[in-house]
């Protein structure tokens, strides 16, 4: 049953990824944006443009172009980036860890702060914590991230001089193993590098975490309150169980499933937001390259980045799905209860 379910999910994943590749491929070819004009500039002759178009294979019929692209994909070749004049797959391999580190750090902050705050808000319903959480929730989903990023840079970096406001590191980093600066410096046990990497990570991760934190907190609160209406928390209190254990081990566990679904929804949103956050904080990840590639009609770059992002969105959603029955044993995969 479980294996069948996983196989059908994998098939779905492949359908979605193929769908995204077709969608973005057709969009780049059909809409008026032209990489050749963008790459050669205004002074290019018609001859030069035809030549480059032929070199890039853009003069072929659409289905042939797609066929070539898919064939290349299977040998790990995503084509050449017109912006950086290098292989897109190389650029992505180089920059992917930076974005993953940023997004995962933000997700970690959002969950580890948002969940306990949501629990507290539900336990002390309409109390001070609940009111504060309501404000955080409203603010968290209402501000534009590029603006808060800039304001945070102004405050932290320039006015208070507390934290670095651009880039990933400012001291020599240990040898690259995972590409995650925090993990690499832990492996090398280089505490200076670790501290430096963490300090660079803090501001962009906070900006990226704020919105998801707010939504997670409200979702946990709402579901905790629903669970409190049931008889078992009362019973647990009556037999003298410690409130902390009741709230976190029993009620939270039962109330967490919708939050897990929410986290699945938040992941693509966070990856999208990283396009803005990486730009503001000069973070050398795939999102910043992606934004540059999109802005200059670098088709291979755009398609490569979109596919990689889509892959991670689908993969992380699969992980969320697999976590359901682990967190809540009442749930069986495949919709069987």
């Amino acid at each position, binding site marked *: 049953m479980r294996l069948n379910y996983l196989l059908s999910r994998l098939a779905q994943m492949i359908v979605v990824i193929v769908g995204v590749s077709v969608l973005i491929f057709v969009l780049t070819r059909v809409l008026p944006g032209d990489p050749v004009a963008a790459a050669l500039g205004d002074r290019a002759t018609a001859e030069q443009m035809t030549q480059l178009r032929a070199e890039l294979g853009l003069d072929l019929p659409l289905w042939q172009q797609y066929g070539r692209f898919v064939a290349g994909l299977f040998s790990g070749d995503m084509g050449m980036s017109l912006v950086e004049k290098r292989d897109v797959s190389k650029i992505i391999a180089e920059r992917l860890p930076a974005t993953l580190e940023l997004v995962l750090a933000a997700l970690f902050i959002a969950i580890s702060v948002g969940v306990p705050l949501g629990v507290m808000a539900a336990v002390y319903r309409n109390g001070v914590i609940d009111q504060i959480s309501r404000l955080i929730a409203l603010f968290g989903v209402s501000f*534009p991230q590029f603006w808060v990023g800039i304001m945070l840079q102004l405050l932290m970096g320039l006015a208070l001089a507390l934290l670095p406001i651009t880039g990933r590191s400012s001291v020599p980093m240990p040898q690259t193993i995972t590409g995650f600066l925090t993990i690499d410096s832990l492996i090398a046990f280089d505490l200076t590098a670790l501290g430096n990497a963490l300090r660079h990570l803090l501001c962009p991760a906070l900006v990226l975490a704020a919105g998801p934190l707010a939504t997670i907190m409200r979702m946990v609160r709402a579901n905790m309150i629903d669970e409190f209406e049931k008889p078992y928390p009362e019973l647990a209190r009556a037999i003298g169980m410690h409130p902390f254990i009741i709230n976190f081990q029993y009620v939270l566990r039962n109330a967490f499933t919708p939050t897990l679904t929410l986290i699945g929804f938040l992941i693509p949103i966070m990856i999208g937001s990283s396009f803005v956050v990486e730009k503001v904080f000069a973070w050398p990840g795939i999102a910043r390259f992606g934004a540059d590639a999109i802005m200059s009609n670098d088709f291979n770059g755009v398609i490569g980045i*979109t596919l990689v992002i889509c892959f991670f969105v689908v993969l992380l959603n699969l992980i969320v799905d697999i976590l359901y029955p682990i967190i809540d044993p009442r749930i069986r995969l495949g919709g069987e209860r």
Partner: protein
Amino acid sequence: MTEHQLLGPAAAPAIDAVDAKLSAEQSFPRLRRFLRNRPAVLGSFFMLLMFVVMAVWPQLVPYPDDVADAVNFDRMLEPPSAEFWLGTDEAGRDILTRIMAGTGMSLSLGLVVISVAIVIGVPLGMIAGYYGGWTERVIMRIVDVFSSVPALVLALAISVLLGPSLTNAMIALSIVWWRVFARIAHGQTLSIKSEPYVAIARQMGASDIHVLFREILPNMASAILVTASLDAGAVILIGTSISFLGAGASPPTAEWGLMVASGRAYLPSAWWPSLFPGLAIFFTVMSLNMIGDGLRDFFAGE
């Protein structure tokens, strides 16, 4: 004996006023219930104010010439003062004037994108939920495809491919956002479809069109309305981000995201050109969220 006779003629107007208020409250119980939600009222009030500014800003703004590409060398980057309440930007233009002029752009962005997304998404979602089978599978798989690319990324790409402009950013966001409403309409249709009144309507020989638009659609209106008001804020956030990244409105348009972007070059000494337009976005989106939360509580209570 009526109240008028009891209290004498002097009290009559007051009593009439109370009566009128009472009967108004009794006849609009739903409105009264909505008005009890203070954040929602505050949000609605702010939205109303914004629509007024959007309509009559040319009469309100202190420096009408500063909306477009005026350059005033004598007053560049002046801090907030009695003369320029929110300061001036790098071209010496009054920031308050430009923020007021940009109101319409952000509001219409939210309004247009959400309307188009509803018109495309809701019928598709309803068809998928109502007919099921292959129709449902194909439509919902397309929804999945659109959902697995972040909205900002897809909208940014489409906007650039169409040629960066505010109109194209709107088109791009509409192409991206329909899936949200398709998914909601799909879920709602699935649950409403099994209600007894739908079965009765079908047995009485109602056509599919009748069942879809007269029985099912009215019953999901509240869910769509709540999502629309909450998502209008999200659309404005992504729309201004697209302009901030350079793929939406182009200078010298008084668009809020663009104003933050161009003010950034003059930090940290001049903080006002990027602070205030960002605050305008923040308050707009916050009001929409307060209205949306209020509507959700309102419909949940019914």
